[in-house]
């Protein structure tokens, strides 16, 4: 459904406001730049926002849902924040700005050139070091401090760093 002339400004205002809401596990990147906001829809006095979980078991989702509800209070008579799997969140959804901010906070953004390989043993591509840009890095642990992060080590600047997983 295309938004009408009347609802479009409200939708734009909602998208702008959602830039203030952050993933509590990665507080420097907004939910919009992480690609978590799947849809914003205004129908009459009803505002519906759809969130896409980065990981099915992500414990931060409930916090983000509450933060979105709080930030959007007053934007419409009825504000509904729903979770959806209809379009799966993939790491491709992170915006260019999101990738820049991830790097700035010491996280390697997920690789973009990996394709959609679901073979028995997919190979994970190397991560670029967010500190020095080197590709001379090794995977230390596919699992990290949160479900969405892996741990790498840069052999050039000798820094451990985290990569946002490619899913």
């Amino acid at each position, binding site marked *: 459904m295309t938004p009408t002339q009347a609802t479009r400004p409200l939708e734009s205002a909602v998208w702008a406001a959602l830039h203030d809401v952050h993933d509590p596990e990665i507080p420097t990147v907004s939910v919009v730049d992480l690609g978590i906001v799947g849809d914003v829809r205004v129908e009459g006095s009803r505002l519906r926002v759809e969130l896409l979980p980065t990981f*099915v*078991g992500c414990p931060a*989702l409930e916090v983000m849902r509450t933060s979105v509800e709080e930030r959007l209070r007053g934007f419409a008579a009825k504000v509904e924040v729903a979770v959806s799997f*209809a379009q799966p969140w*993939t790491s491709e959804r992170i915006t260019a700005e999101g990738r820049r901010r991830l790097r700035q906070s010491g996280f390697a953004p997920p690789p973009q050139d990996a394709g959609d390989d679901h073979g028995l*043993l997919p190979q994970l591509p190397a991560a670029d070091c967010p500190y020095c840009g080197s590709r001379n890095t090794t995977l230390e642990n*596919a*699992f*990290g401090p949160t479900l969405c992060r892996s741990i790498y080590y840069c052999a050039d600047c000798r820094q451990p760093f985290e990569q946002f997983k490619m899913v």
Partner: protein
Amino acid sequence: MTEPARLPTRQLLQPDLPAFDTRGVEPALREALAELLLTMADDEFVLGFWDSEWTGIAPLLEEDVAFSSLAQDEIGHARVWYEMLAQLTGSDADEIAFGRQAEEYRHARLLDHPRTDWAFSIARRWLYDTADSVRLAGLTRSSFAPLAEVVAKVRREERYHLLHMDAWLRRLAGHPGEPRDRLEGALTTLRSDALSVFAPLDGEATLIAAGVLDAPIAELADRWRSVASGVLSELGLPALAEGLPPLDGRSRAEPSESFRWLWSEFTTVRRLEEGVTW
């Protein structure tokens, strides 16, 4: 001293799954879907709890992190399957997850074994992850959209599990002596129970006719066997058992003592206070 602010109560399992319309689902299909979802949920739930038994005592700090993360992933997946089942049958996800007796769980017999040692946990997880990836692949084009959507998401996460387990399988296999001996022992113990992931379902024919499942489960078992056997024979490890998946691979008169113990652990809070919220 003032009383601390009361936190909002929440259910153990959050109802995060979007509501879907179940009116168009025929009763026979509903029953078959419920059976399939329960087996998938119970598999992930039980495995997640076994994984969590490594938290704090894994042989390496990195593996402590990895197994805790694996546990969180699996219980997250189980939560969505239980939620879907609850919506489909008009029941409650917490009740299904925590409210049953030990003998009512339908996880594969492969998951009835205890955590045991590191090699055993790796062997069991590798067998399960390879089997699960074949099962999920058989559901990707499911005609039941809510299932197909979550399968697409879960598969992208599961590949990390498989990658990690395969690296460990090769690592243990490549070290003669205790690591390889223990791995071989574990695979020998599990060689027939591994097939239990593909135990037949009562509603299998209904699922295939409705386009939920793309092939008979025995065919999925063959697909899995050819992939898994290839790796095991490449590494010279004990082969999988021949034959069809066991008919009683998921429903057994007596769950193992180990599973009874695990059940008593994960239902502790629930049994302490009926209807408790988190």
